[in-house]
């Protein structure tokens, strides 16, 4: 078996160093505007505009609790879909009374769809035949920009900044070093090229679609995807991590994820999904509260 270092693309470090250098040389030029309709007596919502590499102008949503800062912060990393909202569907709005929350519409997503509007399916293979043109090079940069911005806000407690999401959450945590906590559901970039042929589910199915039409590009596609595999970012992640994967024998179970789990520098808790948005959600909210020093989580009323 090859060591982790041997499997990682040779140019991995220089590739991402170049992305971060480009990001650093791109002024973020924030614009912040209150959104009255989503503002309550316990929290104020702001629309935020930021520039990422390209340059590309992004839309983000920042909620700040009413009261005395600093506040613990939750950053919802962009997932795979066109819609980005200020808090995820199903999360209690009242959690905005305790936590500063932040989400960003990465390039192509609703709110950041000009000049590039992503299609779904379609985004996952946009520019995939070269690591330099792959859309997720920009999306990762967008996510890093968002984390930098959030951590720069005086209302945010830098010792309690959690990033929540999929692979992009862990990737951005590794690249920026800012989040103190990571809650991650691995996929789809984890061993993407190897796992795609075994699935008919999107977004991985996009790879199968693409290679069916462009079989000669297989090597290039595999090379591009290897730059996004969360395993290679894990050694740089010093945050407290919580990963939810499959139960034993299911896809992405503990055994499948072992290399990733062992590579993360920070403390890691692995949980098996219960395939219930209630049970998995309850567990996540409890973990956040516990990690940030609260006795009780803020939950939907029915929980």
């Amino acid at each position, binding site marked *: 078996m090859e060591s982790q270092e041997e499997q990682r693309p040779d140019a991995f470090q220089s590739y991402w160093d170049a992305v971060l250098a480009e990001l650093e040389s791109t002024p973020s030029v924030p614009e912040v505007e209150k959104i009255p309709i989503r503002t309550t007596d316990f929290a104020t919502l702001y629309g935020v505009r930021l520039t990422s590499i390209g340059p590309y102008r992004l839309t983000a949503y920042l909620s700040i609790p009413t009261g005395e800062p600093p506040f613990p912060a939750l950053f919802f990393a962009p997932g795979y879909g066109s819609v980005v909202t200020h808090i995820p*569907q199903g999360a*209690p709005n009242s959690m905005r009374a305790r936590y500063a929350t932040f989400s960003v519409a990465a390039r192509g997503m609703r709110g950041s769809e000009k000049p590039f*509007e992503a*299609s779904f*399916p379609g985004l996952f293979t946009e520019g995939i035949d070269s690591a330099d043109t792959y859309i997720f090079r920009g999306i990762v940069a967008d996510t890093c920009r968002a984390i930098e911005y959030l951590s720069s806000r005086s209302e945010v407690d830098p010792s309690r900044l959690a990033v929540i999401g999929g692979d992009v959450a862990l990737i951005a945590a590794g690249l920026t070093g800012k989040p103190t906590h990571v809650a991650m559901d691995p996929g789809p970039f984890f061993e993407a090229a190897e796992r795609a042929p075994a699935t008919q589910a999107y977004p991985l199915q996009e790879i199968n679609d693409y290679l*069916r039409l462009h079989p000669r590009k297989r090597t290039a596609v595999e090379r591009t995807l290897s730059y996004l595999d969360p395993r290679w970012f894990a050694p740089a992640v010093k945050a407290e991590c919580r990963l939810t994967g499959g139960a034993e024998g299911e896809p992405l179970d503990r055994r499948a994820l072992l290399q990733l789990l062992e590579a993360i520098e920070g403390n890691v808790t692995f949980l098996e999904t219960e395939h219930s*948005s209630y049970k998995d959600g309850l567990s996540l909210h409890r973990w956040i509260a516990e990690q940030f020093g609260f006795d009780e989580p803020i939950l*939907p*009323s*029915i929980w």
Partner: protein
Amino acid sequence: MGRPAPHRYVSKVVRPPDFDAFWEDVLAQAALVPLNIKVVPDKLRSSDDVDVYQVFYDSLDHVRVAAWYCVPKDGRRPLPAILHLPGYQSDPPVSKEWARLGYATLTVAPRGKVRSNKQFNPGYPGLLTYSIVDRNTYSYRGFYVDAWRGVDFLMSRNEVDARRIGATGSSQGGGLTITAAAMRPEIVAAAAGAPYLCGFIDAIALEGTYPYQEINDYLNIHPESREQVVTTLRYFDGINFASRIQCPIIVNIGLQDNVCPPETGYATFNAIGSPDRKMYPYDGHGHDAGRRDHAAIVEEFFRTNLEPQQG
């Protein structure tokens, strides 16, 4: 203290006396708009066993609506068909897996969704409260018609058996399934999961989560509009459509659903007119509504009612 048992909940939704007349008028307006169907083969998404097409048709107010259409290549004809209806935030998927089971499948992107947003794009959040004070211009007036017109597309296809059309979806897709089954008698079997758009005014009082929270946000800054909002929503509430459903239907809900409260799921189910109805409540589940275990039940339900093996 917990809430009372959800099946005992009494909905506050009232059915307006002119509910049916309102929708007959909307459908009459829609009938004046030719479908103007365009079907474009999609080589990228097609596979060895399934042909995939991008579909476009016109809907109410001449809004152009996109959809994905999947047909199995195995030669069995005519095919039963399933209309797949999308969630509130999610992007309509390419349903190749259902085509592999022997169905022609249409996944509609009603107005405002990606690929159907050139003429109407209120955003998310935003769709739920767009023109919510006026039932004649409320977002879901056209949105519902866009979804229902998928039936017209399916019936236009030579490879589809017009006597074997089903509808399914979860969350908003579940709510749209309720309304489609109510308004389109061509639908002979329906499976609705965690139905959204059902019991609006119940939901905004029971839970404080999005998307329903959009209505509370709106009312917080427009408290003077409450009566108009409540009036509009009565015309769009799945509970008020449900009595028109006459086909076999199954409904699954999560008893800890924090997005579409189970109380609203029961109220919707109890209002269904069809005697051939069955409820699957999943304890220990939220808005997933037991999807993992329920998927096999939905498959079997359509296998029984639409008989894909018949060809």
